[in-house]
């Protein structure tokens, strides 16, 4: 049933090109809500156990062994769910897109549909088709509807994605020609030669990890996030970075376990550097979106660290972190979008003079929630995920936990700094200047209902998972235990 997410979203995208633009946002909303509905139903389907289940299997290109094969397990379900949640709230936050709305929602839905496809594919070629399909829509979303330095950001992001895709391409071909099959379940049982794994794993992993924002290949993320429109950043943080992490887990690690074993220490090193480095850089940024962009890189570092632990706890935590960061990252970018839309600045220095907590109480409330979740305060999904990862890595890399602890302090520091300067800043300034640019003088429009709804969906998701992580973790753990790279 969950396969319908793909078809519905593609159908919605095509429909958008044919119908007049007054209907555009309603079609997009209907499509994304339908996707969310399908995902939720599939998620709570009692028949679904969390282990790998084939949904559709049709021959596609028989001479070359390609199949149209969709399957689902606990990991795919979790990620499809976060895709659906982010998609709905991204559409809600684009409610005010007036310029070329049909095209905007067309590209947006293509990203969403491609991501569903990646998460549900059980055929290597099919997965790669969906994976590459997501590249171009991002380019147009940023190029046409973006802001700061958009041409540079769009091109950089696209070329990084494509370069990562090229590495993935080589790795996939290596797996394909060695095993003679493209079926993920068959490949997951095939014994690849160690000499092949030794080079194919790092190529494949690095290719995927580029999209997941691994240090030092993360630089596309901050510039891309800053250049993108609000919904674009939400999709990038919420969905696209997950594509890379998912591919690294499902393909690179599960197909080449021995290669993973050879390289996993290096992955852990890069992940820890990413966590600390990105958090430190975020501390020095003036642009609110840069702060959030680097925080994304830092949070994705946790995902990679969790993957590197190679034990059930760490990897499950890592998948949970993918969900959690998807929701929190999208929420943070949504709030940044709300602010920018009204004040036309994202500079923390200028924002601190506006005393936005008075004029935009809802945004302030949402930002407090999002910051708390991002810092890893108990009760939010970020805590549940990061604590699981850290317990997992305590077994594998005790030193990494200590260093990461420093990183978490930095995360708290930059998050609080951004929170203070953007919403609660006026007290620190001389009174005279504050009155000169008094908040009453700013004609800030009210927070609209779609924005409240969109933020509400995301806040609900992070709270629900934070309070009851078992909901996701049970399914994730089942799927993770079926993987073959786990350390005893």
């Amino acid at each position, binding site marked *: 049933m969950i396969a319908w997410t793909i078809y519905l979203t593609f159908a919605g995208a095509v429909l958008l090109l044919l119908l007049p633009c007054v209907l555009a946002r309603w079609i997009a909303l209907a499509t994304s809500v339908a996707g969310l509905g399908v995902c939720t139903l599939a998620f709570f389907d009692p028949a679904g156990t969390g282990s790998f289940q084939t949904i559709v299997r049709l021959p596609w*290109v*028989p*001479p*070359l062994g390609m199949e149209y094969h969709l399957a689902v397990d606990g990991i795919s379900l979790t990620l499809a769910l976060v895709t659906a949640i982010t998609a709905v709230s991204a559409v809600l936050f684009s409610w005010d897109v007036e310029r070329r709305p049909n095209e905007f929602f067309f590209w947006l839905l293509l990203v969403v549909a491609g991501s569903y496809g990646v998460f549900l594919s059980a055929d290597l070629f099919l997965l*790669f088709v969906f994976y590459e*399909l997501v590249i*171009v829509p991002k380019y*147009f979303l940023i190029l046409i509807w973006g802001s700061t330095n958009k041409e540079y950001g769009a091109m950089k992001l696209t070329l990084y994605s494509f370069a990562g895709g090229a590495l993935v391409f080589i790795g996939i071909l*290596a797996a394909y020609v060695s095993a003679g099959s493209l079926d993920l379940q068959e490949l997951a049982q095939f014994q690849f030669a160690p000499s092949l794994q030794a080079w194919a794993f790092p190529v494949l992993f690095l290719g995927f990890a580029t999209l997941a924002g691994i240090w030092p290949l993360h630089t596309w993320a901050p510039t891309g996030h800053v250049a993108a429109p609000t919904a674009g950043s939400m999709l990038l943080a919420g969905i696209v970075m997950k594509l890379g992490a998912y591919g690294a887990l499902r393909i690179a690690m599960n197909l080449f376990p021995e290669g993973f074993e050879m390289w996993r220490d290096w992955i852990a090193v890069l992940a820890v550097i990413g966590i600390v480095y990105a958090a430190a850089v975020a501390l020095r940024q003036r642009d609110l979106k840069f702060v959030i962009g680097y925080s994304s890189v830092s949070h994705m570092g946790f995902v990679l660290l969790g993957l590197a632990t190679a034990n059930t706890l760490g990897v499950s935590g890592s998948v949970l972190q993918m969900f959690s960061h998807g929701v929190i990252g999208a929420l943070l970018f949504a709030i940044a979008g709300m602010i920018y839309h009204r004040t036309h600045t994202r500079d923390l220095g200028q924002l601190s003079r506006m005393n936005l907590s008075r004029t935009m109480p809802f945004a302030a409330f949402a930002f407090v929630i999002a910051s708390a979740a991002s810092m890893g305060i108990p009760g939010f999904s970020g805590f549940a995920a990061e604590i699981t990862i850290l317990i997992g890595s305590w077994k594998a890399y005790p030193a990494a936990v200590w260093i990461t602890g420093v990183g978490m302090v930095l995360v708290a520091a930059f998050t609080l700094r951004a929170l203070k300067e953007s919403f609660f800043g006026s007290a620190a300034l001389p009174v005279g200047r504050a009155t000169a640019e008094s908040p009453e003088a700013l004609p800030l429009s009210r927070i609209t209902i779609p924005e409240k709804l969109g933020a509400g969906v995301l806040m609900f998701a992070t709270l629900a998972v934070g309070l009851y992580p078992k909901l996701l973790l049970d399914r994730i753990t089942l799927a993770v235990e079926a993987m073959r790279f786990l350390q005893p």
Partner: protein
Amino acid sequence: MNYLELLRLAFPEAHVTVTSLVVLALGLRRTRPAALCSWVAAIGLAFAIVAVLRLPQNATLFGGMLVITPLTSLFKIICLVLAIFTVTMAHSDSSARRNHGEYLAMILLATIGLMLLVGSEELLMIFIGLELTGLSLYVLTGFDKSDPRSAEAGLKYFLFGSIASAFTLFGLSLVYGMCGTTGLAAIGEKLTTQSVQPLLAAGVVMTLIGFAFKIAAAPFHLWAPDTYQGAPIPSAAFIASGSKVASFVVLGKIVFVGFGPLQGSAAWHAIVAGWAPVVAVLAALSIVIGNLVALAQTNVRRLLAYSAIAHAGYTLLGLVVGGRDGFGATLFYTTGYAFTLVGAFGVVALVRRETGGDDLTNFAGLRERSPFLAGCMAIFMLSLAGLPPLAGFFGKFYLFSAALRVDENRGLLWLVALALFGSLISLYYYLIILKWIFADRSSSSQRSGPDPLPSNVGLLQRISLASLAAAVLFLGIAPSPLIARILAALP
């Protein structure tokens, strides 16, 4: 063998010949009925497709001078379809409208050349096909007498092309001298028993050089940019599509059937002398030079020319691989590429008609003027860049997987990695074209001239561009019909 039998088996070629004469005669009438000429040419080509479909499965005439196999029939049809699209494009092209009958007759003659090329396994006949195609294309390139660029392009193409022909002929004569036969299969048999002599090696290399000119592989590509930019657009499209497809088919036949025993290997650290390393060097140079020089272009046609050089490099990769897999991948890729490029030139032709030029600046704001053209161009460019779900993506996947599959040690990985790096570069310049088309014209640098009027795209062009875009999409989403046919046709 009687003449009736010959006429039966060569009926498609004969039919196109008659059509070309009819079109020529019609064009001589005082009223110059351009539309009538186009219709006669298109219908004649369509009937030729039907005639090809009615040919027997397998037949051989005069020791391989004319062969009919599923492969030749398939590619005759593809060449004819490409010719029909070219005729459609010429229908609305002003530079081709003057003396329309002659222009169409030349296209038809070139098509006969392509059909002979595809349908022959004998050196002399192949050379005749090459010359017939070449001479018609030289005329088509220099057809626009009012434009000095066209004349320059025609002259350049003619000079380079005739030197290439000389090389080919010299090479073929050496091969004939060493083997004593002109039939490809017989040459192949001779070479398995014979030891390789220097003279024979020279013959093989010269033949390859001649074909490298034809397909515009670096370093023999110098004619391509000027020709693509200066020729009337339908001519450029036909040179880039039909002529290229047929050249790859016949080149594949020559190297695999004729020179098969001399293949050698281009695998890293395991190079074996033969034509494969030579072709590998041609491919690598084409990929690097084509992509890097394309980065610096500001004229879309010139950019497409350099990208065509790069694509020739990718396509040659399949020949380096060899075998059924490699040749099949080459044929699939070149077919997908040909349809994509005809479409791209179709869009360029319309933009040129509307704005008077084909620089990148002329494409600014195309989306506002005509969302249809912009959408088609996006499909064509993204297919060239190799993004799914389009023909170029699948073609690349097939080519590269064939290249890695060929030996256990992945000896061709270096070439695949180079090709992937080339695709990364190419994505940049294809996106630049799309950026001009889709970005808003708000920035002052892009706003030149008066506000654009909506483009007036005729019904015929709409249909032909839409069907080309649909074909490119179809070959990407459902490649198996074509792949299964190609693989079934290959021995």
